[in-house]
């Protein structure tokens, strides 16, 4: 049977169409802020087209992600960690923990022996704005996220910015720029700050295992952040390709059950 999952994120929308455990098609699009409902339908239609299917062919659609309540055409909604957990188990049967780093949320999901969830840790408000901080810094530095990721990949920066709060961090970054610190250095400092934040959330309750922890979510594509995080936490993350689709995949798998 054919099922689908849609991940309505803060920054981007992801859709996955699944047939008997095989991915038929993936679709991604920028989440249109408040017009999320409309843009989601667009992405959904494109994905259907890519899979050469009619809406009728899909027996069940499940939505997840922070904007899941904004889309109308789905049968069911599940919360993000549940979807992440499902996807992680599907991709890596041995996985014991899945970490999802997104635009403004970090979710650390500890998996139990069966498909149950032992613990979920989400960042508190003041630790929010990870992806968003990077985005707005990229804007300030006048580079794209990819460039920023490429430039800031490397050893820990000598300069440091506040790692507690996005706004302070930016303030510090401005000060650095003002003292003619090279862009790369600033970018690296900001990346480090983000890594510090994420790591402190990894430390929050159950420490993730070094070997069997899966890393998914939009930020997992950002090499610089991931490397900095590996350095800090000493965790050797398992990162699936198409990591940003994990949520949608999980939702689709749930729909199949």
């Amino acid at each position, binding site marked *: 049977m054919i099922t689908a999952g849609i991940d309505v994120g803060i920054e981007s929308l992801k859709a996955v169409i699944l047939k008997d455990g095989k991915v038929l098609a993936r679709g991604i699009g920028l989440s249109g802020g408040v017009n999320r409902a409309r843009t989601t339908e667009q992405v959904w239609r494109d994905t259907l087209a890519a899979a050469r299917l009619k809406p009728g062919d899909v027996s069940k659609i499940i939505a997840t992600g*922070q904007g899941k309540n904004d889309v109308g055409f789905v049968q069911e909604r*599940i*919360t*993000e*960690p*549940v979807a992440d*957990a499902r996807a992680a188990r599907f991709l890596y049967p041995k996985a014991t923990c899945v970490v999802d780093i997104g635009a403004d949320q970090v*979710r650390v*999901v500890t998996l139990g022996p069966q498909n*149950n*969830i032992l*613990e*979920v840790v*989400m960042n*508190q*408000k*003041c630790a929010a704005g990870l992806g968003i901080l990077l985005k707005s810094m990229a804007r300030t530095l006048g580079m794209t996220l990819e460039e920023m990721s490429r430039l800031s990949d490397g050893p820990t920066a000598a300069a440091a910015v506040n790692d507690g709060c996005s706004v302070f961090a930016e303030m510090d970054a401005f000060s650095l720029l003002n003292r003619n610190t090279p862009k790369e250095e600033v970018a690296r400092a900001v990346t480090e700050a983000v890594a510090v934040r994420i790591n402190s959330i990894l430390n929050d*309750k*159950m420490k993730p295992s070094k070997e069997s922890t899966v890393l998914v979510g939009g930020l997992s594509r950002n090499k610089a952040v991931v490397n900095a995080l590996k350095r800090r936490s000493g965790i050797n993350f398992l990162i699936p390709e198409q990591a940003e689709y994990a949520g949608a995949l999980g939702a689709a798998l749930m729909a199949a059950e």
Partner: protein
Amino acid sequence: MSKQRWETRPLEVWNKAKEMRAEWQKSIDTASSERVLLAQGNIQWSIGFPALRVIEDNPVGAMMANKSDEFARICRLAGEVLGWGREVCGYQLNCWGAMYLGHQMDGSPFPFRDLVIPFPDPCDQHTKRGQAPMDYSPIPRFQENWPLYTGPRDTDREKAMIEDRVYCTLYIIEEIERIFGQKFDDERLIESVKVAGGISPYAQDVSRFMQHIPSPLSQKDLYSFYTLGGLTKSDPGETVAIWKALRDEVEWRVENNIAAVGNERYRWMEAHPPPWHFLKYYRYMEKYGAVCIGSQYSHMMAGPFEIKPDGTWAPRGGGFRQLVNKPIKTREDAIRAMIGTEARGHRFKDDEVIRPYALNDFAKAYKVNGAILPLWRCGVGCTVTRKEQGLRLSEIGVRVLHYEGSQPGDRTDLDENRMMDQLDVWMESQGLRKLEE
């Protein structure tokens, strides 16, 4: 929607309680016109002065936050422009903001205080409490020490502390007599000590009944009640009566399996004040069939509990409750009885400050599945060791959820939607879905 497992019905005593609360509020507003002294603080012995009414700013601030976001906002601003930092307890900021504005929520004039007797408490905000009215207009302020120390209890160490507290109390009483020319009535004090000892058995019973499944009451009911003991000092007899009535009704509810939440299938606990402007999250949790059986904070009237060696859940004793049976003849006896044999404060807060494990006992005794522990970013006593408790609780298999806000009485920076999302995540990740949409 699924069939309810247990019958639910509103608490009958509640109406009576409402009346008493209204009366109390009135008695505060009319204090100045009746030429009655109004004291800022919360003291057991105020009863000794016939013409002295006591008001603490906590309930006021909480009420404001709960009733009107707008007014609370304006009050906080009134305080902010005078230099109040965001770290200041939200209750105070609301209450004193209203003082600076000079009127209350309903537009009636603000009841200005005539003197300040801060209730000693381990929370630093309490230590400095009541300075605002003192700095605003020159009124006397009296303070006691609230001894604290870590490690095992040491009665020798506490001798000096007890003497100090007895001395302070007597001193304050004499000062009030001197300054305001009021006569202190020892008889009433002695009587009230006995009475105050009299409330707690009922309160303790109520607390104990809540271990029953389904829980006869929920956090919401407790929050309506737990201040009553403090509210109606003016008539201790009445207070005891209503607590007895409550006790009996709850007992009856237990016998007939009357539940607070019809579909109770998940029990969770709290620690410390909720966001008073956002109490609807209790109802929201009920959609999952989850009931909040309270917190050490809301079971406070019953005094601190602990698990006895024989495994029963019983009050820890100490404090004045211990000594009410001793003969009380003089003012000093009464004061000593109030302070009791233990000078080290042992209300809910110290239990946490001294050993973060206290909540574990509570969790076990009330068979909770989860705990929601707020992190008040700028609250002091409300945040200290909260994270530690979370870790301890998860060690005994209780699922913990933290959410972040600014202050219990302060709407700023509490992201309600994020909190709702977190509640969903928390429930679903434990395999629970909403019972009805």
